[in-house]
């Protein structure tokens, strides 16, 4: 017991520091929420969907009186806390691996909540229309194999566009992030060399470039440096009016990132899901018309059997609420809502959550 506490002190300090770095307004509410004693349910995890979760939990408490305390400590921390049983549910930008699931006390269900998309942003003063890039070209750039903007492999995708002969500066996230996971998942899907190394993960061994902290760090570095290229979340790019590239999807169609094109990606994949899916699915490079290829779900992680019957009812009630009322408000905060067919499948799945310990 003592050892736990001692370990927790520096850990808490690190986590607290992590919290400080996020955008001002949202965090103070997280701090007050975490100290509030009246919470009925507690959850922890991903920072990316925190704004929409915060809105959902607020709206839900206002309409039903059930308080949900959510701490956006990062996906990894959410999975750890859920595994240790210190929270009622977790949240993650990347699905739990088989190894992580095996460590949990019981079966864990993945519930997709909203969609995130990753945009490619760049700083090229002479380009006015969105640059067109293929998955392969993006992979080559981030692997350091294309080093100049005037490279024939970029020029071929952008006929009639005069590209400068300047060097490309790659800017990537330095902090572990679901955004990096989605982006590298996409690059691994479209480029076999990338899949071999560096592969996919929340932190990578980047072949080239500069690491910047957070979406704001990447966007700031790209904005300041001519010839720079980086990636950020769709919501961040929209709110800050960044220049974004149109990316070729599986059908060869150049799609600009948007809420609609991210939802289209999910629709394209979910039409082909087997009935017994556990929803630990990647939707990068999705088929379907108008699908933006660098999209991903973000998940709530819910134990399949919940010991307390009261909590089981509260959690399942909330899940049904977000699938109906919550999804409607997602777009207001620049999150892409789930496609309709998926919502009905997930609603049916809520019933499989049982009270009592696992059989």
């Amino acid at each position, binding site marked *: 017991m003592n050892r736990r506490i001692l370990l927790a002190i520096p850990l808490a300090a690190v986590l607290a520091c992590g919290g400080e770095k996020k955008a001002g307004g949202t965090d103070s509410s997280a701090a007050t929420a975490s100290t509030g004693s009246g919470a009925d349910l507690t959850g922890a995890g991903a920072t990316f969907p925190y704004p929409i979760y915060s809105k959902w939990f607020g709206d839900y408490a206002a309409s039903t009186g059930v308080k949900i305390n959510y701490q956006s400590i990062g996906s990894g921390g959410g999975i750890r806390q859920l595994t240790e049983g210190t929270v009622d549910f977790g949240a993650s930008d990347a699905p739990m691996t088989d190894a992580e699931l095996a460590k949990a006390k019981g079966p864990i269900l993945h519930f997709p909540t909203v969609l995130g998309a990753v945009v490619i942003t760049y700083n090229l003063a002479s380009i006015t229309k969105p640059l067109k890039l293929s998955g392969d070209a993006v992979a080559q750039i981030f692997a350091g194999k294309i080093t100049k903007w005037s490279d024939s492999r970029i020029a071929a995708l952008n006929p009639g566009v005069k590209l400068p002969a300047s060097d490309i500066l790659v800017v990537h996230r330095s902090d572990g992030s679901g955004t990096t996971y989605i982006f590298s998942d996409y690059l691994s899907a479209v480029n076999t060399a990338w899949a071999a190394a560096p592969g996919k993960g929340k932190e990578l061994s980047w072949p080239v470039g500069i690491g910047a902290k957070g979406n704001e*760090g990447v966007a700031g570095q790209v904005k300041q440096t001519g010839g720079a290229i980086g990636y950020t979340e769709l919501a961040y790019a929209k709110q800050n009016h960044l220049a974004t590239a149109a990316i070729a999807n599986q059908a060869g169609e150049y799609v600009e990132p948007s809420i609609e094109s991210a939802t289209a990606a999910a629709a394209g994949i979910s039409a082909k899901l087997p009935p017994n899916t556990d929803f630990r699915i990647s939707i990068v490079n999705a088929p379907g018309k108008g699908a933006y290829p660098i999209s991903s779900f973000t998940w709530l992680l819910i134990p399949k059997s919940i010991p307390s019957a009261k909590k089981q009812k509260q959690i399942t009630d909330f899940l049904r609420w977000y699938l109906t009322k919550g999804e409607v408000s997602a777009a207001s905060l620049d999150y892409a809502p789930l496609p309709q067919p998926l919502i009905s499948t997930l609603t049916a799945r809520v019933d499989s959550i049982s009270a009592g310990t696992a059989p």
Partner: protein
Amino acid sequence: MSGPEGRAVVEAREGDGATLRIHGAAIGDRVYSSAITFFALCVPFLLLAIAWEIGVAGWPALHKFGFGFLTSSDWDPVKGEFGAAPAIYGTIVSSIIALVLATPLAIGVSLFLSELAPRWLRQPVGFLVDLLAAIPSVVYGLWGIFVLLPVLRDPVMPFLRDTLHLDKTGLFSGPAYGPSMLAAGIILAIMVLPYIASVSREVLLAVPRSQREAALALGATRWEAIWGAVLPYARSGIVGGVILGLGRALGETMAVTMLIGNRPEIAASLFAPGYTMASLLANEFSEASSDAHLSALMAVAFVLFVITLIVNAIARWLVWQVSRNTSGKTA
């Protein structure tokens, strides 16, 4: 001189008036002394407990990678291969840059404040220098991103590289993107400056007047008196201040993370991005989920802890040295 006799008198007087309370006072003394002993022991215990916890958590990585953990440049969380050499290198190099830039400046500031400044200027300037220490590091980082980096990118870096032809040294070569070891070193220099200046000023003020007067009486100019009599007297105390600044530079996290470029690579050029142990921890800890990765990060924390501990021990020793020398000379 009169210490022991004075104390005896006081004790006798207390004994006269308080014979009835002696028993109670003894218990109170004992409670008090054990309480403060407990508090005093808490701190070293906490230090050891932290070291133990970090060491235990980092042991799997240290055991698995062995000495290679300190020498390998391969930091790949996807493959589960961890070598902290670039972060160790970056931590030390950025701190050295910081000290090279900050030390002359800090000594200049403290010499001015202790020797040359008119009395009315001494207080406000000293206060403002100390105030540098009160600025949160994230503010330094933001200032670095929006002011320092653009200035470095143009004109400072091209000037060093092309106009002064320093690229031939290898230290100032390559593209000038801004985020770099140099940027981190400069921001660290500003951050450690108040620590070094503050300690140096105190040490210089502690130099006895007789030291200066003697030098001046021998016909030394003011400069010769400072250089020949004051500075040598304060030297080891100033070194203590510098090492205190070094300890601070080694552990600085936020501002460095925002400016260093976060690239785990050892590059000769100071224009190239680098990494430090503290920024590595800040970047990767919150999202690290695999056991190997967590353990590697804990091992980095342990290495950083050990380095900082050694530096602080040296600082203590130097401060102790100077205080012993000073008391020896005044007697």
